[in-house]
């Protein structure tokens, strides 16, 4: 029963995603065109990559509000250092990924070792990073994103977007780590109960810190890739990813309080959010009406994937079976 109920939330998130896609295509037939599906994959990939680290952090019982400016900093610094050239990426990308991871580690240490509440720690780090990057660069750098980054973000192999492939690889790795590694097992344990994890001899601190480190890493990665989408870095590019990265995780079935969820669910969450934002312009509604629809659709989507709904469903089926 456990595996079933564990996967149920995820399956239903995918159900919601497909339903949303079909409904959307009624409003605008072009939605299911290969070109548009590709553009959905590309946009979802950015949310998905930021939400990858966020998934780990949330499963571990925390939350990372520093993703906007980790992302933005990596984007700005990458274009600044690379000056439009591919060659320097060889050192820039590893350097900035490491820097993102380092910021994440600082978050993790503040939270796990010093006991600062995650919300405050990561919020403060976000503000400090924002200020830091403004002091350091005074704005967005001049250069366009290097061609290689642009290729990764918007290029395609046949009909398949390159970033879709990148995302798929990351998703497989993340799923593997969560389901099949010692670290994944420990992360769930720490998020479920830090006390029990400690009494069980798990490296509680290290595990929590690793989650934040990964989040810093994926936010930095997403930031660099995102420059390839817009062709450049700009200030504020990380802002939309604060709530979307958390919402994707939650829609994907994870509890915000930790210990449950899976990246496979988050992927559906990223798609749901992307399809929703894409659906709305097509509806031609006012800004206000748009938000109302957005809220309503989220409610319906998550209700359909809720336990209560599933119970009701099971109940009806049992009734039916009983005659």
């Amino acid at each position, binding site marked *: 029963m456990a595996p079933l109920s564990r996967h149920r939330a995820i399956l239903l998130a995918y159900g919601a995603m497909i339903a949303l896609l079909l409904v959307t295509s009624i409003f605008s037939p072009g939605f299911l065109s290969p070109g548009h599906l590709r553009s959905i994959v590309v946009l979802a990939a950015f949310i998905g990559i930021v939400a990858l680290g966020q998934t780990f952090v949330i499963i571990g019982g925390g939350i990372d509000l520093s993703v906007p400016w980790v992302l933005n900093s990596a984007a700005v610094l990458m274009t600044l250092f690379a000056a439009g050239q591919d060659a320097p990426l060889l050192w820039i990308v590893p350097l900035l990924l490491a820097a993102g991871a380092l910021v994440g580690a600082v978050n993790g240490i503040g939270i796990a070792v010093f006991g600062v509440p995650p919300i405050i720690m990561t919020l403060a780090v976000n503000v400090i990073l924002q200020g830091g990057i403004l002091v350091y660069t005074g*704005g967005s750098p001049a250069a366009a994103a290097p061609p290689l980054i642009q290729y990764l973000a918007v290029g395609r192999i046949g009909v398949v977007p390159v970033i879709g492939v990148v995302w798929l690889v990351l998703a497989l790795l993340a799923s593997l780590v969560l389901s099949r590694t010692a670290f994944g097992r420990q992360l769930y344990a720490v998020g479920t109960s830090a006390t029990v994890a400690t009494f069980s001899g798990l490296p509680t601190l290290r595990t929590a810190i690793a989650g934040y480190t990964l989040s810093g890493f994926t936010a930095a990665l997403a930031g660099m890739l995102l420059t390839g989408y*817009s062709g450049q870095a700009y200030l504020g590019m990380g802002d939309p990813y604060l709530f979307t990265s958390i919402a994707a995780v939650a829609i994907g079935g994870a509890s915000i309080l930790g210990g449950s969820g899976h990246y496979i669910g988050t992927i559906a969450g990223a798609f749901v959010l992307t399809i929703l*934002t894409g659906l709305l*312009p097509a509806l031609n509604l006012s800004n206000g009406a748009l938000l109302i629809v957005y809220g309503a659709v989220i409610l319906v989507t998550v209700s359909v994937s809720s336990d209560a709904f599933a119970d009701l469903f099971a109940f009806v089926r049992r009734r039916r079976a009983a005659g």
Partner: protein
Amino acid sequence: AEGKTYKIYLSNNFVGNDWRQQMIRIAELAAKKAPLAGRVDLKVENVETTVQAQINSLNNIIRAKPDAILIDAGSDTALNPTIEKACAAGIVVVSFDQVVTAPCAYALESDWDRIPALMAEWMAKELGGKGKVFIDRGLAGAPISARLQEGYEKVLKNHPGIEVIGYYNGEYALGPEQAGVASLLAAHPEVDGILTQGYGSGAIKALQDAGRKVVPVTAFSYNVTGVTCAETEGAKCILGSNPGYLGAEAIKLAVDVLDGKKPADRHVLVYADFLATDEFKSELYPDAKVQKIALGTNAWKDRPPGLTLPISPDWMEVTAEEAAGN
């Protein structure tokens, strides 16, 4: 009071985009450079984006009893009670860029009637009075967004052949513009023009990504837009300008007022040149100057994409390096 040094605070409610960075840089420059050098002791107060934070900051500023306060406001009305307090304390208040409605405050801004009207006029001409367009609605809740949208629509109404087939929220950022246009393109196989409120280059990129031909685009005068329009095969653009030197203009206005040279009206409009890929002469605004985009002159490949054009007000020289901060 001519020759005196005035203590002036600039209250800015948002730091997270390139425009505001440039605005602050040029304002700080204006305080140091001729003709205002020595005339102002400028302090810039940046606050987080909430109205409450700006109110609190303004209250702190009022307690410091400056000669003038310059405000790039987070709301056109919500700061009014606080601003009235400042006025009552004898402080000169100049709101600029995102201006306020408080009658006691000067409001220095671009001519938001002229900009969208002229750009829509240009679009109608490009389309020969016939075609389907998308319109950018800017940012939900921002007063300027509605004015731009309405400005576009008002002029387009005079061209019955032009049909608005879709709206998106560009949010004055590249990503949302690109994503918004991309979604609309999926729904609408045909589009002949896009009226943006933002960079415009995001719209062009979305067209290219979708494998569509590049259609005429209206946008704002960012360096990236100028460069993209100049370099993109077949691109037609017109760029309206909300110049990054508005902060400096506000300083100048405040100094003038403190010196006793009050403008006739509390509303002060700033007119900056348009940029376009071709020559364009407006019938609606015959005085309006439209520069032709020329790389190296008014758009630079090696300068920050977010640089707002034009760079200098006519009373002060600002180099591109100074504006870009590097």
